[in-house]
């Protein structure tokens, strides 16, 4: 499938000399939910800001649905909706006015029915005549989302959408993201909450110090980099792994007191009951066992710390 966003050799060095992005290559597929993970200052917002036209790239090419973001900025930008990280809203305007303003700004003919639908979807309809400054932080966040959706974008950028957001809004927001994806909208989000990426994203990109260090399907990423381990506390320490078990991925830990088995749940020939039966046949006893599985967070931490 052709990518909806194609980024190649993108770099950004700010006037201060800070190199925020070092040669980024990335393709976003149509209709996917892509999560961009990275520590603070990794370059997530810079990357999003360049695609949206807020920051000028130093070099490189970005195509949005085939349109160059600089030469064909109108075509490129009209497809994008952006929900920024900061709660930057007008103050004195009403919710209704600001949503209609955004729609106009993005070159769309007025469509009160669409604006009404967006406001209702975000539980803002009752607040439509309220001035934005009178709304709570969570409501302002909803207003920013409404503004981004007012012009029916094909691509939605959510920059840290759930930072400082209450549980209810977070749940509503993810429900909305799922509905939009069902409607064919491509969604790119950055988040600090790794469990959120784990739950929502189809693919994950990890960005660190201006470099994309990994881009992978979430499931593959977790399979490839995630580990499942069984640890057995042995009754008697072992000096070495018995030859009969040499084709199992076993390791001795804690001076031979623990046997660690790194396994793949899809491998039916080497499942845990078989291993336990083998051990019992060999007369190796154990007093305790536990299994653990690495989360996306473990993967993320190990990826980032490897680079330090």
């Amino acid at each position, binding site marked *: 499938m052709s990518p909806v966003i194609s980024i190649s050799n993108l770099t950004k060095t700010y006037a201060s000399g800070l190199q925020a992005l070092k040669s980024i290559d990335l393709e976003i597929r149509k209709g996917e939910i892509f999560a961009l993970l990275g520590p603070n200052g990794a370059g997530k917002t810079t990357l999003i800001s360049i695609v949206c*036209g*807020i920051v000028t790239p130093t070099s490189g090419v970005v195509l949005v649905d*085939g349109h160059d973001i600089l030469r064909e900025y*109108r075509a490129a930008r*009209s497809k994008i909706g952006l929900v920024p990280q900061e709660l930057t809203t007008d103050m004195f305007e009403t919710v209704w006015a600001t949503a209609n*303003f955004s729609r*106009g*700004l993005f070159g769309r003919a007025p469509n009160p029915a669409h604006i009404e639908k967006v406001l209702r979807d975000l539980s803002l309809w009752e607040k439509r005549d309220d001035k934005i400054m009178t709304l709570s932080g969570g409501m302002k966040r909803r207003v920013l989302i409404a503004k981004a959706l007012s012009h029916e974008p094909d691509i939605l950028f959510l920059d840290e959408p759930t930072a400082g957001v209450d549980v209810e809004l977070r749940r509503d927001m993810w429900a909305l993201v799922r509905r939009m994806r069902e409607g064919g909208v491509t969604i790119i989000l950055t988040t600090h909450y790794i469990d959120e990426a784990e739950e929502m994203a189809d693919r994950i990109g990890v960005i660190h110090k201006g470099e994309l260090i990994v881009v992978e399907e979430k499931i593959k990423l977790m399979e490839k980099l995630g580990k499942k381990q069984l640890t057995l506390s042995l009754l008697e320490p072992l000096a070495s792994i018995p030859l009969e078990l040499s084709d199992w991925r076993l390791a001795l830990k804690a001076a031979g007191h623990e046997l660690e088995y790194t396994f793949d749940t899809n491998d039916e020939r080497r499942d845990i009951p078989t291993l336990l039966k083998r051990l019992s046949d060999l007369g190796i006893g154990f007093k305790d066992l536990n299994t653990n599985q690495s989360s996306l967070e473990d993967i993320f931490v190990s990826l980032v710390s490897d680079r330090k």
Partner: protein
Amino acid sequence: MSSAANTLAFNRYAVWAIYRFEMARAGRTLLQSLVTPVITTSLYFVVFGAAIGSRITEVDGVAYGAFIVPGLIMLSLFTESISNASFGIYFPKFTGTIYELLSAPVSYLEIVIGYVGAAATKSIILGLIILATATLFVPIKILHPGWMIAFLVLTATTFSLFGFIIGIWAKGFEQLQFIPMLVITPLTFLGGVFYSIDMLPAAWRTVTLFNPVVYLISGFRWSFYESADVSVGVSLAMTLGFFAICLMVVGWIFKTGYRLKN
């Protein structure tokens, strides 16, 4: 370019959205936007027109009270155009909402038309209101109404452009006030709002001719009474020249992203 790009050859919805947004802002601050300048102008009439004007009979064959009307309109036009346009673009920068403008499929020209158009519209309305207010105090005649409107529109647009530049340049509210207070107001007061430069000593007359505001006021006054400090052609050329300079600076700002983009 693709068809999608072509359908947006001119984003009129965006221009209209910005224009309406800015006009709505004036609607909310109607008191500041219109009533304050009208009161200020009325005070000028009371102080200069009635109190001092009774001692100065005529300037170039025009009653003093009537003589100062074009200058007073210009004074309000300068300050209001600048403050409206500078605030209009500075405030989104201050609050951060400028992100939306920068990420929208709008050209620089459309942004300028929206903001400057709204600021100029407000100033022109204001100028006409002051003119109407003035007729309550003194008899006014307008010999060249076409030129009067032309100078009004051109000056309002030029100073709105200038204000737009200040709004982009300003890094704080103080800087927003800086140019209007320290440059425009003195130049205007010394630019012949309240006197004809012929009333000055010869040396000061020469100095005054370096003040661009003299030409703007003189041209506008000519359209009322055919009395002018400098020829109307020179006035028009100066106004157009200032307009062209502002236009070029705005063009440069958007080309480089000066104080707008990283």
